[in-house]
């Protein structure tokens, strides 16, 4: 159970393998192990940024600590982290670094987490497009439009006009996309065979511009370099991972000794289904609504099939008689 020389290396590698803006100092983790309050704010921030990245949400440097704390608590709960002590941590982020360290390690257990973060933040040098057909997150604005008239009424013709304008935008977007395709294709076609990466074969728009104006792309090169450093840290981390988990077990040992153990075995009985609680959270309400709708649709389909099958069966027996 001794620390050994590998631990600082492991912690350091882990920190360097995290994305640039979610990169803690190794000291933060060490302080958190001893539940030092100074490390709490940094840890909240770390978890906030990581979870925002996982959830695809937006965040800014200036997001208040209260909002960070709320979001982290929710996101961890959403992922299935059931430890109530976390939920009870103060909302000003002043304490709980050890709890947060625990939660952080729990997040890490998910094997693909670091890889997922690496892939998401990958430096783009090529021409990209996604083939994901998932619904875009359309803003669910409950606020009425600002165009409401004096009595809060809107002329339906205004609606028609807006709709027409929207269609016009779509058309011009389409035209621009097509133009972009044409130009992309030209660059790809004319530079094919020139790229040193055989898999790609041709240049991207960025690379073609890089040839003409290399001085504009110093930052790109820097980004690529630091990404390479990050990847090498990841590889180092993979070598030393076991040391980290053993260290985390000592944290659990400490907590067990301090009596921070399983609080209530019967807590889960309470935590079971409380369908009337849906009003307190928009997420839960939305989920409940979706489930209800699905249930109705399934029942309707079941009814339809039932009738259809009955019909067909009757017809079948007629024929076969």
């Amino acid at each position, binding site marked *: 159970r001794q620390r050994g020389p590998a631990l600082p290396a492991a912690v350091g590698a882990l920190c360097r393998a995290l994305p640039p803006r979610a990169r803690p100092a190794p000291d933060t983790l060490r302080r958190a192990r001893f539940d030092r309050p100074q490390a709490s704010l940094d840890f909240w921030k770390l978890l906030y940024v990581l979870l925002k990245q996982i959830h695809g949400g937006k965040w800014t440097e200036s997001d208040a600590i209260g909002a960070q704390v709320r979001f982290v*608590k929710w996101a961890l709960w959403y*992922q299935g982290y059931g430890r109530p002590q976390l939920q009870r941590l103060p909302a000003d982020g002043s304490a709980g670094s050890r709890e947060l360290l625990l939660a952080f390690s729990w997040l890490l257990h998910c094997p693909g987490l670091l890889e997922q973060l*690496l892939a998401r933040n990958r430096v783009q040098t090529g021409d990209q497009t996604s083939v994901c057909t998932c619904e875009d997150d359309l803003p669910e604005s409950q606020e009425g439009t600002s165009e409401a008239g004096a009595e809060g009424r809107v002329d339906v013709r205004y609606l028609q006009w807006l709709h027409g304008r929207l269609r016009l935008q779509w058309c011009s977007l389409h035209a621009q996309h097509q133009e972009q395709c044409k130009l992309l*294709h030209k660059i790809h076609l004319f*530079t094919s065979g020139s790229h040193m990466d055989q898999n*790609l074969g041709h240049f991207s728009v960025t690379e073609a511009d890089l040839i003409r104006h290399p001085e504009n792309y110093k930052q790109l090169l820097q980004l690529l370099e630091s990404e390479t450093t990050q990847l090498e840290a990841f590889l180092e981390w993979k070598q030393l991972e076991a040391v980290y988990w053993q260290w985390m077990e000592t944290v659990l040992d400490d907590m067990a000794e301090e009596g921070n153990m399983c609080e209530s075995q019967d807590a889960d009985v309470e935590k079971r289904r409380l369908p009337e609680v849906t009003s307190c*959270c928009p997420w*839960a309400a939305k*989920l409940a609504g979706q489930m209800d709708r699905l249930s109705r649709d399934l029942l309707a389909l079941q009814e339809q099939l039932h009738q259809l099958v009955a019909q067909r069966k009757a017809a*079948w027996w007629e024929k076969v008689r």
Partner: protein
Amino acid sequence: RPSPKELEELELLNRALEKALKVRKSILENPLEAQRARGQKWAAGKISSKGVTSKQGRSHRTAAGASAREVSAAAEPQETPGLSESAPNEQQSFSGGDSAAVKNSTVAGKQLLDAGKKSCGFLGESSKKEDAAGARGRSTSPGTGTLQEKGCQLKLPLPYRKVYSRNSRAWERCRLCQTSADAAAARTRFMERIQTTVSFPSRHRLTPSPAEIEEELRGLQDVLFHLRKYMEAEPADPPTLQGEYESLLTLEGLQSTVSQCLQKLQLLQEDCPGDVGSCSPACVPARGQTCDSADMLAVPLLCYSSLQELRDLFALKLQVSMLHQEIALQKVMMAELLPVLEARPWQEGSAGLFRAIHSQLCEGGRRFPVLVRDELLD
């Protein structure tokens, strides 16, 4: 009657158009810009004309004046120093000659004239450059020649190549990297301990996390979608007896699947967590997660084999996005407009309103039904 906002937007549109017109004019008036514009036009002409050689370029010299607009000249101006050098010379030769005519001519006329003169000067120069090219080697110099000619011989600058190669090798190593057995074992031990000793109540019975619940729900919704399609795909009247039997079996299969789904949904509803804890107003569903594939570090290459494919890809993506938006709009419109139909008693002038609502809800705002008053003759 247009609202003030609409008027404002029309105003903005007008101004934007005017600005665009001004910009065009100023480009044509500014000789250097005009040369660039011409150069681009020439480049464009070149790309479509397929492999014009320097010999052809020379022969175009005489025709350049007349056809400067269409442009099949082989010159390549932009980045080369020759451009800035020849321009002042050109101007001087102009002012020597029929400057009055030049000044008085229309913008278009000036361009033609410039183009004519220009092509003479440039063709010679660039063809000279082309001849000397072999000796000099053109690995890194841009601009002498179009992308089409030189594209396959271009090389990325060395610093970039180095950094890029190191980067791709690192990615490859990461992709191939496996978790060591010790690490996996240590991790599992930690997870077990944290779950059993340090109060993770809900995990005792392996209830799914909210994220997993959402995932399951999405899966069920997908299944419903496919079941419906299969049901509709079954022929209404199969021709053969065998076909009818098979169809019947399929439908019964669908029935049992629906029952299973209903059961799963019920379990899921039970698993739905009652205690939502501290709910954040910024609840963001983890949509992105479901899209990630197993091999996250592989190079995501999307290959296309023709321009048409690329265009289709973009067009279809846009179409999907548009359809999503239309669906969302439809939902909102139904919520807003249907109550209007139900609520009021039918007034005399409502026909127009009904028509508008019908058009929005049922025709996507694209078509307007014709309302005909049916005059019954008593």
